[in-house]
């Protein structure tokens, strides 16, 4: 039995990737949950908003790289992020003006909004593919690892290595900063408070003189920041491929619903619940168990509960369980 090595192996394959993936999902779910809280519909276009935002960042990064602009050991994409966010804000505000506002004024049913957002999804997806193509795109540069497996082994003398990629560290730090700023904004500023009031009770908020169009505009701006950041971080950490963002929609929605739709704290918790369930269930536990079990009792198989091809199934099953037993989510979200 070798707990130290077991723990390091666990950290390397489960904890670190899980935390990074969880932060990405949490950022995505925050965007979905905000749109839900303020505009009161499930925004199917969120995944492709992330894709479009990430695509702008990719293109700007390439531009910076071409003129020799680098960010020391960090990925150049960080430098491109603010510009990409500005583009995405423009895109979302434009979409709201052209598409969603009409239905808002008509007070259309939420399900109409959902269908409309599906239409928007495909237009966004089309634009992304039209501009950048549908293949894998690499825009990562700078130092690859904060600590590589080999250095770690040399430092500690352990058999197992622990590698932390720069992108993973960056994801977590960025996510913490973004979430901190978001909560400060929602809880301390006048605009944030008006957003929460509007989300809680629309009529009451209107009576107290809150301008709904302003609330909606601020929401879209925040959503653009969240979606672009999440999209860029995911693209840096995994790889940028337009269609993966549509598939991310399911885990993102599952995170938002597990936490309670419309509840920002829930979205973050939900993101980590989904990410860790996905990683632990699709991870082959052979190595960790090999260290943990007494000699001679090591498992023969991979001890992988589900193959990684079924990672969607994990978020889906969690979603079903939550819908069956606690439809409002772990933290109380809006139900009806």
């Amino acid at each position, binding site marked *: 039995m070798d707990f130290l090595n077991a723990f390091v192996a666990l950290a390397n394959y489960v904890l670190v990737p899980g935390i990074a993936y969880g932060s990405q999902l949490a950022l995505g779910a925050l965007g979905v949950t905000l749109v839900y809280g303020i505009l009161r519909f499930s925004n199917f276009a969120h995944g492709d908003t992330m894709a479009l935002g990430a695509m702008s960042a990719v293109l700007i990064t390439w531009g910076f790289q071409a003129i020799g602009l680098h960010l020391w050991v960090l990925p150049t994409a960080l430098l491109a992020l603010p510009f990409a966010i500005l583009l995405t804000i423009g895109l979302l505000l434009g979409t709201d003006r052209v598409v969603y506002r009409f239905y808002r004024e008509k007070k259309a049913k939420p399900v109409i909004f*959902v269908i409309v957002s599906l239409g928007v999804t*495909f237009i966004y997806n*089309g634009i992304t*593919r039209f*501009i950048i193509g549908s293949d894998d795109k690499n825009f990562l540069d700078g130092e690859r690892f904060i600590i590589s497996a080999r250095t770690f082994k040399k430092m500690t003398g352990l058999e197992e290595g622990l590698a932390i990629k720069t992108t993973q560290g960056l994801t977590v730090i960025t996510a913490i900063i973004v979430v901190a700023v978001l909560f400060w904004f929602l809880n301390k500023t006048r605009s944030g408070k008006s957003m929460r009031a509007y989300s809680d009770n629309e009529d009451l908020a209107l009576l107290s003189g809150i301008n709904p169009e302003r609330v909606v505009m601020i929401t879209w701006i925040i959503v653009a920041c969240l979606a672009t950041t999440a999209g860029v971080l995911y693209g840096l950490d995994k790889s940028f491929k337009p269609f993966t963002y549509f598939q991310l929609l399911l885990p993102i929605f599952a995170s938002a619903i597990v936490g309670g739709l419309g509840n920002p704290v829930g979205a973050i918790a939900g993101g980590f619940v989904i990410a860790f369930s996905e990683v632990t269930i699709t991870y082959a536990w052979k190595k960790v168990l090999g260290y943990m079990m007494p000699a001679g009792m090591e498992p023969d198989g991979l001890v992988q509960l589900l193959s990684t091809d079924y990672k969607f199934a994990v*978020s889906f099953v969690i979603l079903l369980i939550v819908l069956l037993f606690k439809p409002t989510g772990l933290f109380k979200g809006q139900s009806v």
Partner: protein
Amino acid sequence: MNETLRNTALFAIIAALIVYTGFAQSWNAALLIISMGLISSIMALGVNLQWGFAGLFNVGIMGFVALGGLAAVLIGMPATEGAWSAGGWGILGALLLGAGTVIAAVQVMKRMAKGWRRTVVVLVVLIGGFFLFRAVFDPSVAAVEAVNPAHTGYLGGLGLPVIIAWPVGGLFAAGAAWVIGKTALGLRSDYLAIATLGIAEIIIAVLKNEDWLSRGVKNVIGIPRPVPYEIDLQNNPGFVERAAGFGFDPVEGSTLWVKFLYIVLFAAVLLLLLWMSQRALNSPWGRMLRAIRDNEVAAEAMGKDVTARHLQVFILGSAICGIAGAMMTTLDSQLTPGSYQPLRFTFLIWVMVIVGGSGNNFGAVLGGFLMWYLWVMVEPMGLWLMNMITYGMNDGYWLKDHLIESAAHMRLMTMGAVLLLVLRFSPRGLIPEK
């Protein structure tokens, strides 16, 4: 212009478009558009039942269609020799074990009093059952997949006439719809959308990865047909003579005849389903559904069981999509799990229903044909457009290459734009609900 005349004119326009394709391109292309148009119309009928009648938003049409395709394989293909004895029964036993585990867990949930004891017992049953399932399942799967992996490596089917697969495909889809409907209906409307989105992804993942069931991405090819093969017709002197009588050479005559037979079969199914849908629309049941759709609270106050009716209509609509899926796989004679894209199988059908006129069965059929025609034509049109735009540019200029290469992605944008424009400016569609 009165209504009947207007609707007839709309259908006549589509007929004219298809006939034009026949003259301009080839009759084979035209007949193919008709047969896929028929299948699309059936899918649109199913979605119209859910959305037009009951206001349910199903984003998982792709999954139900794929389940129908699976039925075509499981019914139509011959059983793989040796696969059942190698591990088929083991897989079946494992699946029964899995089902037993779920039933046991549900029973424990029902019988025991609430508390930590119940949670522990349920978890033990589920986890124990899962490992038991894997212990039986994995070796059997490995054994089945080892049977001649280059050609089979899966269980095969029952070897029955493939037409039987059509209703069976409907049953498969109905089963999946029941599970989804039972959990997600009765909650807020978006939940159904998200749950169906999920089930579709999972069904496709299962088809892609469970090689013992569907050969995964290796595809099942050569599913037996309900109609004769072209080569047999060409070797049949009687047929060749008849074809010559109509002025066709044997090859063209046989391909057209086979497509025509398919069209007759598909049209029969479409007419049957259309007749049933019309009857349902005008029955007390249809009126009740519309009443629920327009005002759930009022309908509930009148004593209607909203959730039960929604479940019913959701299952029926999904079953129709399953039937259409089985028919499509029959037409293709192959199941290619990699080709199921949400754009093609979920979104396109939605556009059909909304463009045609949600709530109107004839609208769904019209939309099915019209959008399928556009779907086939958008790509060449996009390419033509890009060629026009880049006409003045030099060959080899990066923008020209890029634009021409990207023409293939025009479909996404066109379909999205069509949906948004119709929803905004003509939300009732071409043939509005009465």
